[in-house]
């Protein structure tokens, strides 16, 4: 299920429209994830405040979305482009890859809420495929 030229074009076009709100998207997606999938809180026991929209959540949401933005720019070779991030997630963070799917779902929910007119089924499938490809690239170095 690799990204077609059509998918890449759709992702880049949509990202162009939404990237201005990247921090809000990241904050909301992460906030939702921590509420709807409480098991994900286990990765953030070092934060003082895990409540929706809190300072650590906002900061981390921004970090995550910078990674997504970077991935958009490297969409033609995610594995090579995200090598460092993959090593980080594999050796340091050791986030179970199942959680990438969970965060991706919440990003899609937020995109649907914030951009209901633009988040058509065709954009949805392209973004879903892109986030899945991103997750695969992040899992590259796990084993």
């Amino acid at each position, binding site marked *: 299920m690799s990204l077609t030229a059509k998918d890449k074009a759709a992702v880049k076009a949509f990202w162009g429209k939404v990237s201005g709100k990247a921090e809000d998207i990241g904050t909301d997606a992460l906030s939702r994830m*921590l*509420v*709807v999938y409480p098991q994900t809180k286990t990765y953030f026991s070092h934060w003082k405040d895990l409540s929706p929209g809190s300072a650590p959540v906002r900061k981390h949401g921004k970090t995550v979305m910078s990674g997504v933005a970077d991935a958009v720019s490297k969409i033609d070779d995610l594995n090579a482009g995200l090598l460092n991030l993959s090593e980080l997630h594999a050796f340091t963070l050791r986030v179970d890859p199942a959680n990438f799917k969970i965060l991706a779902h919440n990003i899609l929910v937020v995109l*649907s*809420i914030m951009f209901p007119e633009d*988040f058509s*089924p065709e954009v*949805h499938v392209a973004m879903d495929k892109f986030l899945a490809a991103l997750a695969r690239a992040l899992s590259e170095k796990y084993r």
Partner: protein
Amino acid sequence: MVEWSDFERATIQDIFSKMEYEVVGPAALSRCLVVYPWTQRYFGNFGNLYNAAAIIANPMVAKHGTTILHGLDRAVKNMDDIKATYAELSVLHSEKLHVDPDNFKLLSDCLTIVVAAKLGKAFTGDVQAAFQKFLAVVVSSLGMQYH
């Protein structure tokens, strides 16, 4: 038996009392057929599913989407025993329709995304959690009679 908080019960009742079945149902099913194209395998007699535009415009998809969404009504009215409520539907999906139960989750994710777009800011994290919990119970119940 599933435990529901007062908030969860109220949230589910509220969402479905305001549900525009003829908009949300078709939107959710057509989105599922576009985003997860292998689900089209169950709709061979629905005519033109050739591309996203065709799927979205297809009247059989729209009609079936509405039917499926109304199928949730019984669960909304019987939140304390969804498993029993859907025993017969589970047998139907297994024995007659031969639907892979993994597909139920795919449709439920699309429904979540459509409802999120409709409710906008009102679809808070807590509302999302309640809605997804409800759908998870429905999905589990529909898979219960497969053997």
